[in-house]
């Protein structure tokens, strides 16, 4: 079965301080294609440019040069307004430090992307509860982040990332702040979402161990992709 390309990046270059003496090029022409339903890990040392690449994939930033087709739409030239919609509808973020809003309960946190998608409060609550159920956090729906453990918070964050049923889940070191046991639980959840719901998941990590769990490992170093291996098919490029 030939599935379609969800992410299609060609010659992505990112420079900071363009036109200034301290101009800095972080990404030197990245070509990356991710098919629907893939579980990819992007591995690299800190400073390798993987965070910048993640921002690019997550439509948080625009490349200086190159094209980025997300689900067939070129978003490299889109304005802020449209990028917001892309982030809202097509991408689900999971961060290392959870990034939950501390003064809001778990269920209210999960409701945030739904709120920006203009879903009515009633439907929002239903959907949020459904998602919390899925990650096994329904009983703790009214707890605030500081009343939950790290693993629980990350599960809430995953529920939030899934809120608008996005095409891609983008996870940045999702187990980085967790102990190995809870980290395992979180990883299991990702695998479950991958196998049961067929989600495309892009996992950014510096841990080779974690990367080995995924079907494809893209290694980035110094702003360039240095290797791209698929478990079943061996070296790709």
């Amino acid at each position, binding site marked *: 079965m030939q599935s379609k390309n969800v992410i299609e990046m060609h010659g992505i270059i990112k420079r900071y301080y363009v036109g200034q003496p301290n101009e800095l090029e972080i990404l030197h022409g990245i070509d990356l294609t991710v098919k629907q339903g893939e579980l990819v890990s992007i591995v690299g040392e800190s400073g390798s440019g993987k965070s910048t690449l993640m921002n690019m994939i997550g439509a*948080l930033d625009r490349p200086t040069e190159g094209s980025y087709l997300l689900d067939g739409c070129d978003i490299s030239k889109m304005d802020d307004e449209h990028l*917001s919609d892309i982030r809202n509808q097509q991408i689900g973020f999971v961060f290392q430090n959870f990034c939950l809003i501390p*003064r809001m309960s778990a269920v209210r946190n999960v409701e*945030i992307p739904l*709120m920006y998608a203009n879903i009515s409060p009633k439907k929002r609550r239903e959907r949020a509860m459904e998602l919390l159920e899925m990650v096994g956090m329904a009983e703790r729906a009214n707890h605030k982040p500081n009343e939950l453990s790290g693993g629980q918070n990350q599960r809430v964050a995953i529920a939030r990332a899934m809120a608008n049923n996005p095409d891609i889940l983008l996870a940045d070191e999702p187990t980085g702040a967790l102990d190995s046991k809870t980290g395992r639980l979180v990883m299991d959840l990702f695998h479950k979402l991958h196998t049961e719901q067929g989600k495309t998941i892009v996992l950014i990590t510096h841990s080779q161990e974690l990367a080995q769990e995924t079907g494809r490992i893209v290694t980035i170093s110094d702003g360039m992709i240095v290797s791209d291996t698929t478990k079943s098919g061996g070296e790709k490029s």
Partner: protein
Amino acid sequence: MNFTESVRLAFGNLKSNRLRSFLTMLGIIIGISAVITITTIGNSLQKTIAATMRDLGGTNLISASVNCIYPDFETDAEWQAWDPPEMTEDEKLTYERLEQFQEDFSDTVDGVILTQDIGSVGTCVTDDGEAKVRITGATPGILDYMKLQMVCGRDISEEDNRQMKATAVVSDLFVKYACDGKNPIGKQIAIQSEEGAVQKFYVVGVYHYDPVRMGTVQDNTPERDLPTQVMVPYTYAASVNEAQQQESSMGIEYFQIIAKEGADPTQLADDISAYFAEKYYAANNNFEMYCYDMASELGTIDQVLNILTIAISIIAAISLIVGGVGVMNIMLVSVVERTREIGIRKAMGAKNKSIQRQFLTEAVVICLMGGVIGIAIGVINGFVLAKVAAIVLEQYQQEMGAMITLSVSPSFMAIVISVVFSMLIGMIFGSYPAKRAAQMSPIDALRYE
């Protein structure tokens, strides 16, 4: 994210920071409550004064008096040496001349009220009893003017005055004590003054004696010994006084003018002064007709209140601007504090304008809440102060012989303006912090610790 959503978010946020929210509002609360307090007092006073004036005889009255103009004396000796100016016969104001005046002003003047007492307190003895009286010569309409109610019979008429008839309108107290309650109309009464002179009158009417109107509320004299007014024709009283050589060397010195409805009393007062200056005192500028109207008096009080309101409003405006700057300051702090939240929201798909609206709504809600609390405090303040004023006024009430009806009413306009103004402050001082929040880069915001 719609409007109610923003408001809900704003309230949630303010609630999570109660003390800070309240302190932020304080400037707005003080400013708005000051404005509302002062406008409530001002509005209440204006209404009270207007109502009292209406009660006293209305704003259509003009008092006119003949004034002798004094030169500025430098020393006592100068004053001693000064010879008061004399009036020629032509310059003296008489009843007939006032009739002429009334005719000349028939478009704007409804009537002229003249009074002149005969002697001081007199006694009237009849077969049925006796009563103390004061004889007052008056032109027609005196009872209306004094807001006294007719019990039976009629008021002093035009004809009584023209023919110098010895008619009299007596009080119901007089009837009670001198006539033993029997109807006195048509009967003749004899009044003996303290000096011994006796005046006889035919009673044509009875009026109800109202202590408030007559200014005797606080008089502790027993009702029986209270001298009540016996109204007689002005011309009759004048002729009696003339015969006793009691008349003034200046003719009529003082009278009241009732302006017609629709005429501007202030303008009319000026016109009357000018009329007399031209017609009577053109050759003798030692005299003038001084006219003074209740309406302009009311206007003066209004003016004072308005100046006071403006002064307080300026102070309040300064307080509001300071309050607004406080709101802006706190909002800027709040934006920095919530940088990560802004980043998270943006990553979750919040648009710049959603973020901007969220912070702007918060600023407006703070200011609006401050405004509403301020209005509530202001109205309460106004009521309390007006009640204090009422207690003070109550003591004067009886001395003045007028009913003071205190009405407390906050100015509706001031409340509306306050609400709009506090919202405006929120918008003005909230827009910059909101814009800063909206323009944050999501990456930087997410990375902010």
